[in-house]
């Protein structure tokens, strides 16, 4: 009995975002289907991984992470290089030092670090501020200037600070990450505001502020699915590729931290923690996430192997 394959006729697609410059650029987005359903559309670019690098040595990272980056965590350049060895498609540099509660580093100091990292690597760069919105508005424009022409992805822009960050991206040829707290209306609104300033829509990535497996993943999953359906049915202000900060969320979970003697029924910590990050990432890839910002090299390896397989079109 011949089954007629049910295909949706989508009339639109996700924007293609290019980060970095040739020959080392990375493209994401461009999908004209739900993830990996090659029978009804195209997925020209695979989901990619950025590994996280902090400009100050974090004191709350799990042992299995600090083991993986032993000896490089005090030096963002060395750390970034290590990440590339581990297969990172991009580096995500977090300017934690600029946080007023930590070093309160100046925009110039941050720009210097960002430039040093950018100059030392041959993969594209994502640069994230401390998350303190006013401070990011001061820091990111200076960083953007120092990285002029490198076409980095800069963030995170929120409704309170998108203006300065957008302007800095426009002047210096960068793209922007627009954050929303799991809220599709805020996501759209912010994209409208940014494009109205003149930054092209294909230079925006949406950050829905995801939660990890067990800690709100279902909300992020559904928001991403809804945004993708919006993009495929013609909503231009939802047609941006989605970036997911997987590592920072997954490694916060108790399941990724509790030693086996504390919770014997959960099994061995290392394997459990790596799976916590990997399952969070693959679940988001299937909900339409395009860039996964991750931490553990093993989780990255497993994620990429899964994506290798998923990128082989099924025959129907």
């Amino acid at each position: 009995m011949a089954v007629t394959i049910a295909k949706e006729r989508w009339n639109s697609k996700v924007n293609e975002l290019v980060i970095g410059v040739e020959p080392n650029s990375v493209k994401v987005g461009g999908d004209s289907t739900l993830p990996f359903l090659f029978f009804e559309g195209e997925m020209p670019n695979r989901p990619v991984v950025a590994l996280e690098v902090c400009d100050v040595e974090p004191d709350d990272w799990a042992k299995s992470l600090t083991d993986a980056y032993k000896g490089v965590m005090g030096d963002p350049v060395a750390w970034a290089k290590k990440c590339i060895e581990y297969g990172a498609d991009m580096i995500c540099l977090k300017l934690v030092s600029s946080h007023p509660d930590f070093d309160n580093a100046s925009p110039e100091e941050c720009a210097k670090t960002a430039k040093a990292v950018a100059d030392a690597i041959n993969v594209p760069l994502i640069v994230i501020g401390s998350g303190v919105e006013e401070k990011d508005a001061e820091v990111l424009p200076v960083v953007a200037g120092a990285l002029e022409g490198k076409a980095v992805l800069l963030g995170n822009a929120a409704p309170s600070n998108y203006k300065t960050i957008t302007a800095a991206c426009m002047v210096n040829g960068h793209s922007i990450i627009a954050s929303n707290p799991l809220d599709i209306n805020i996501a759209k609104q912010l994209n409208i505001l940014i494009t109205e300033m003149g930054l092209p829509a294909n230079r925006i990535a949406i950050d829905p502020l995801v939660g990890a497996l067990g800690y709100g993943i279902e909300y992020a999953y559904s928001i991403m699915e809804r945004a993708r359906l919006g993009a495929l049915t013609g909503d231009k202000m939802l047609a941006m590729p989605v970036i997911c900060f997987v590592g920072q969320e997954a490694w916060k979970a108790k399941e990724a931290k509790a030693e086996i003697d504390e919770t014997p029924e959960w099994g061995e910590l290392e394997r459990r923690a790596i799976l916590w990050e990997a399952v969070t990432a693959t679940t988001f890839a299937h909900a339409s996430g395009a860039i996964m910002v991750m931490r553990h090299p093993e989780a990255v390896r497993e994620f990429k192997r899964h994506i290798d397989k998923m990128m082989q079109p099924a025959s129907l």
Partner: protein
Amino acid sequence: MGLTGLEIFKQLPKTNCKDCGQPTCLAFAMSLASGKASLDLCPHVSDAAKEALDSASAPPITLVKIGSGDKAVAVGNETVLYRHDKRFENMTAIAVSLSDEMSSEEIINRAGQINKLVFDRVGQMHSISMVAVKNSSGDSGKFLAAVKTVAENTDFPLLLNSENPESIEKALELVAAKKPVICGANSENVEAMTNLAKKYDVPMVVRGEDLDQLASLVEKVVSMGFKQIIIDSGSREVNQVLSEQTQMRRQALKKFRPFGYPTIAFASNQDPIQAVLDAGVYISKYAAIVVIESSDPADILPLITLRLNIYTDPQKPIAVESKVYEIGNVDESSPVYITTNFSLTYFCLAGDVESSRVPGYILPVDTDGISVMTGWAAGKFTPEKITEMLQESGISDKVSHRKVIIPGGVAVLSGKLQELSGWEVMVGPRESAGIPTFLKQRWL
């Protein structure tokens, strides 16, 4: 369900005889459509019309029940493609698979591990759903012995994985009363297998080499009068399975009857970590049963958690009652913790208070079931509401001190809260996991 009044009206006798208690057939059709009446109230409807109405109003995916007793599981009854449209109904049944080539000690050992795959999450216990026994040996005697050992050592419903009718029959003679799923029928054995399923009244997996063959086989089984079916598109590679699972769900919702049954997927990837990732995809993408070989809790915990997340109702956060909770043997000097009444938040905190081994009181403020930071951002977790809880919950009669610990994420509330409530506010760690250390440094 699903049919409009007019569609139903077409099938009625149109005599307006009023025997159903309604003035006209049309009125009766309308009440049927809105679920206010049932078809048997009309004594005159023809058998053919009944059959047509029944099948048209049946849920797009049949409900199939597996197992007996309190571990029985139900799969199917799904009505949507996206969980944001409504919600997914019956959680994916996770089946851990054993082989009849394992020695009986090994099976007993594995069964013991499987029985321990029970996890406390958000105050509820969650476990795997079934144990699959695979007839890898091809030998029906070995299969019977393995099924017997498994049945003696676990209470989980069984999935009898053999395409050899002889193996299945032997096993069914022993365990049919436990309502196992047989797995199952293929193009070679479909008649024999279906007869067994009918004879022993147990659900059955039908496997096609591809979607086309699957549809034909299902039609054949249905024509033999059997409908407790679970469908398997035959693929074992995750990229292929995703497309096929999506097709089967879409087709079912479009009322293509041969695919109107729950589906099964096998996470049989040779690489154990990849098998877990594949299983995760099947949980999110429509499989009603997922079979996996690992019984390592580190592999199963993420899957059970994902299943719980994907199958929660997106419209309703799970909340706990807002009242004073006592963790351990509390007394008048025990610490008092403030949190919100989102279940996940409350149980994270409760678990960590418990592991601190210092008895304590927890006061979850009613935030309509949302988390600490979400509640704060939404203006539902305020100094006013916390003060009200401190004053009205009766906690001030239970402790002699006046110190309250709040989550580190909402440190900004402390000044106002102290002023309003008169309690000394201590800012706790951001993550409740930091509570044991916090207590050592600041409380004891």
